[in-house]
């Protein structure tokens, strides 16, 4: 028996695991203390809970607990990392290297840096969504202080070669920051093996609560420092002031612990379902996989169905299935996804894309239903698509003078 709606948008957010909620609940009521209250049991209890959660979080990424700075989420962590390094290392240089498919939290922060006198290189990704390592190395200058490349992309799920990126960075004495929001908890991420100096991630993408995230800041080889962006009581070793979100942090810790224990089994199960969904949907005529086939997260697939428009497509089943699209119509800007365009996709294919994000609670029945519904709707919309008719008649669509508006 299927329960509707089916949630296949786990790259946007995930539901809280009930075990996470159970762990959090006492910290709203009985154990409500401020972790900074050093002089009574309420504070001690809260501090102890935060310390424990910090260990759980650190363990998932192979870090030391002292290297975890809790924040309100990944956007804040991205800001703290980039702006914090830019300010802290100003005497060393002002150049940052990033890429053109980063999340807006990174791209817009880099834009801000440019206004502050920084210089930013935006590497173009290849058509598989990965950066060219030679281009990365060539972009490094004496003034380069930071390489900011995402671990995995949120729209297409491609996983960047972090080990190779950090090896290049080490060679030139440049710090590596990665926005690992989509990767942590889904695939093994180890800050030491991967050579990462700073890393942003968040609880709500890994079955934890919204409103809590973390920045990993390396303490040894090298010791990395960031300038605080929020001033106040000097919490989080002075790097992020503000009373700690104790229930959120407890939930984040629990979520990390569950991911660490269950990732291997979960990945096997989810990637099998993802592969089934992807294989079946790619059997639809004129459908195209976006992003690299091999180097990608186990739970994501992004497919363009040519000659149908993404939002129109979603409307066929969005009462029952929640997915997202790179179509312009889903955004206020009317511009299709900049990530898909960066892969060299024409606007027409970018408009025709759907992203499917599977998760911990996704079942095979749900995937079977999704395959059936998506296929059916694509066919229905193609029957009313003038472009499909032209394609079937062999008309070259580039030969038509479209009225661009």
């Amino acid at each position, binding site marked *: 028996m299927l329960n509707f709606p089916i949630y296949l948008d786990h790259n946007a957010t995930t539901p809280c695991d009930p075990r996470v909620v159970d762990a959090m609940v006492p910290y709203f009521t009985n154990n409500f203390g401020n972790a900074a209250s050093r002089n009574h049991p309420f504070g001690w209890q809260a501090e102890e809970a935060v310390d424990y959660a910090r260990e759980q979080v650190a363990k998932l990424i192979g870090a030391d607990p002292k290297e975890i700075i809790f924040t309100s989420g990944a956007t804040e962590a991205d800001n703290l990392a980039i702006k914090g390094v830019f300010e802290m290392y100003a005497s060393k240089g002002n150049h940052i290297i990033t890429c053109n498919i980063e999340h807006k939290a990174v791209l817009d922060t880099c834009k801000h840096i440019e206004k502050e006198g920084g210089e930013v290189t935006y590497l173009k990704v290849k058509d598989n969504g990965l950066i060219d390592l030679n281009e990365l190395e060539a972009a490094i200058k004496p003034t380069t202080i930071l390489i900011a490349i995402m671990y995995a992309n949120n729209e297409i799920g491609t996983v960047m070669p972090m080990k190779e990126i950090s090896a290049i960075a080490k060679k030139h004495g440049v710090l590596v920051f990665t926005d690992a929001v989509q990767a942590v908890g889904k695939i093994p991420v180890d800050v030491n093996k991967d050579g990462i100096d700073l890393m942003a991630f968040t609880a709500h993408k890994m079955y934890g609560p919204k409103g809590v995230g973390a920045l990993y800041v390396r303490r040894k080889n090298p010791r990395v420092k960031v300038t605080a962006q929020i001033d106040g009581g000097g919490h989080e070793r002075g790097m992020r002031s503000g009373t700690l979100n104790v229930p959120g942090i407890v939930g984040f810790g629990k979520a990390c612990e569950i991911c660490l224990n269950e990732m291997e089994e979960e990945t096997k199960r989810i990637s099998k379902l993802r592969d089934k969904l992807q294989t079946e949907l790619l059997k639809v005529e004129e459908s195209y996989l976006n992003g690299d086939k091999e180097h990608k997260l186990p739970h994501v697939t992004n497919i363009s169905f040519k000659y*149908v*428009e993404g939002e*129109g497509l979603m*409307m066929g089943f969005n009462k029952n299935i929640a997915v997202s699209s790179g179509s312009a119509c889903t955004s206020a800007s*009317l511009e299709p996804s900049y990530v898909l365009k960066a892969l060299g996709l024409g606007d027409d294919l970018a*408009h025709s894309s759907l992203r499917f994000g599977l998760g911990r609670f996704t079942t095979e029945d749900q995937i079977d239903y999704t395959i059936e519904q998506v296929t059916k709707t694509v066919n229905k919309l193609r029957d009313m698509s*003038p472009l499909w008719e032209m394609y079937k008649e062999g008309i070259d*669509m580039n030969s038509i003078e479209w*009225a661009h*508006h």
Partner: protein
Amino acid sequence: MSYSEKVIDHYQNPKNVGTLDKTKSNVGTGLVGAPECGDVMRLQIEVDETTGVIKDAKFKTFGCGSAIASSSLATEWLKGKSVDEAMTIDNMTIVEELNLPPVKIHCSVLAEDAIKAAVNDYRVKNGLPALKFDESVVH
């Protein structure tokens, strides 16, 4: 964003999907929009040559639900109107009928443009001068 019931109804049960023979002299075809913009509408009218009344209208649309609904509604309204009356269909009446939100007004503009393009195609085929229109404000 949620859709109005009327948009959903046209999307689920589109009226007059199809193709008319564009080579016939009494058929006018309008093709507007562009694939890169995420919407393309093709609207066709078939005119009764003795009465000048539109006896059939068909559409095919590549686009979002609002674009499909706008063109479906346009074909409904076109049938039974004279060619001249067809020109009076205004995009804002489509907006009102379908309760389109501001971000979807361009869908209705596209439908109006498609009607005008179809009428002009019919006029030119029948030796009449194409009517000039102010540039629609789109996107």
